[in-house]
């Protein structure tokens, strides 16, 4: 045996000792212990899990002074591995560039976090919305206005 390795044979041998019936009864005792302990199920739509700060939910486009922070540089669209972001940039009268169209296909999105990571203006971030449901593919094409407040997509139950 090389250094840093050890054999499981003696553990295996030791297992033969307890016999047949006792381990079976021990198993029953263990499940009974679990029967008595608290269940871990969360009653999902009514009860929700505490999720972490860094949760990668549906994207949120941030606004500053009632304007989108986004300047339409297109880095997010470029870095996006599944190419879920469509962005069309225009220039306003003041010479500021802004995205005239900012569309995320949430069905294509793999929530890798690259877009948020590369945005130089901190204009896009992840919300904590993870239960976005719909009946049609088109419902998942989110325009920039939809992305301002993704909390409205939280599934409320029936």
């Amino acid at each position, binding site marked *: *045996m*090389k250094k*840093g*390795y*050890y*054999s*499981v*044979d003696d*553990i*295996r041998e030791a*297992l033969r000792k*307890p016999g*047949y019936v006792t*381990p*079976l009864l*021990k*198993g029953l005792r*263990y*499940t009974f212990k*679990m029967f008595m302990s608290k269940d*871990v199920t969360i009653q999902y739509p009514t009860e929700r899990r505490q*999720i*972490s*700060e*860094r*949760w*990668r939910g549906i994207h949120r486009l941030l606004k500053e002074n009632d304007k989108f922070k986004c300047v339409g*540089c297109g*880095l997010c669209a*470029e*870095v996006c*591995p599944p190419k879920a972001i469509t962005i069309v940039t225009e220039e306003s009268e003041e010479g500021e560039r802004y995205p005239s169209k900012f569309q995320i296909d949430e069905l294509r999105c*793999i*929530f*890798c*976090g*690259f877009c948020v*990571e*590369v945005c*130089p203006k*901190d204009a896009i971030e*992840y919300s904590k919305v993870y239960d976005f449901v719909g009946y049609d593919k088109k419902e998942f094409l989110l325009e920039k206005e939809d992305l301002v407040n993704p909390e409205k997509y939280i599934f409320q139950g029936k």
Partner: protein
Amino acid sequence: MAAERTWKLHMGPHHPSTHGVLRIELELEGEKVLKATPIIGQLHRGIEKIAEDFTFHQAIPLTDRLDYTAASLNNLGYVLAVEKLLGIEVPKRAQYLRVIISELSRIMGHHLWIGSAALDLGAMTVVFYTFADREIIMECIEEASGGRLTPTYMRIGGVSKDVNEKFIEKVKYFVDMFPEKIDGYETLLTDNIIWRQRNEDLAVISYDEAINLGLTGAVGRASGVNYDVRKAFPYSSYEDFDFEVPVGSKGDAFDRYMCRMEEFRQSVRIIKQAIENLPDGPVMADIPYLNPPQEKVRTDIDALIRRFKFVLEGFHAPKGEVYQSVEGSKGELGFYLYSDGGSKPYRCKIKSPCYIHVSALPAMVEGYMLSDIITAIGGLDIVLGEIDR
């Protein structure tokens, strides 16, 4: 004249215990397996081809989808390969974090394995216990990266974000509570005579055969192949930690099981050491052509330009080829990268352990019974995402 004694059975792709879309063409005599031919490819997504069109950075999320039960390990393998190609050093803190996350992933992978392997044999409860415990790891990883199943936490040159106190707390909690849970699994399975009877002396692979078939990881080690990438080619500061690798001798399904159960304990041991000795410092290597940190981008125009260059063009790796492997939760997970000097991997070959293990399946199950195939597959711990790529 003699009657055809054998019959054919197509097991899968829609079969409850082929762990995905594996299909096995069986030739049976009664219930005895005469010939087994695994047929794969139903989940083929062409990750290697897609990676050729992505920059080195963009290809990271693809690797998450290989072995989705222990996604961060694949990340690690890939970024290590790229780093090796580039020849860059990663900060110590990042290395330790990588170790913690990858060992947590390994436990996650093993959790899924033991749960489904037990479910295959009808022990339906274990899978729920393991998923309950897996949830805690998921929360840890979520705390660090924001993702649960496919965290995409590793980056070339480090990890995506530094961890917070909450993460460390949660990991510590997990490390403290988990050994007891392992004992629980063992009460239900290891000690159980039925479990032993189903696993012992089954799908036996000898040492020579194992090494010739290229079995690595717990499957190979069960046959006595004392080869662990963490020990043989230490990466990401694994040499800093005090841990041992379990090795079996008989090479049956039960040894595979025992090895994995021991790996649980060893992983906990590594995580404990890493989380207690977590050094301070940056989590990204400060290399000019890599993605600069956000704080710098906000203030520094140079960093901004670097960011644009990183995203739009990617970095150019030197011409050459590397092979870097990590000890995945299933075995040696390797990435062969060929770079022609461009910003994209010219050729990225993923060596997935399950792929080799599936090719060894006929050698394992032939001569055993129909029910034993289930046990053998369960003991191999295959993930079709990794096999088909």
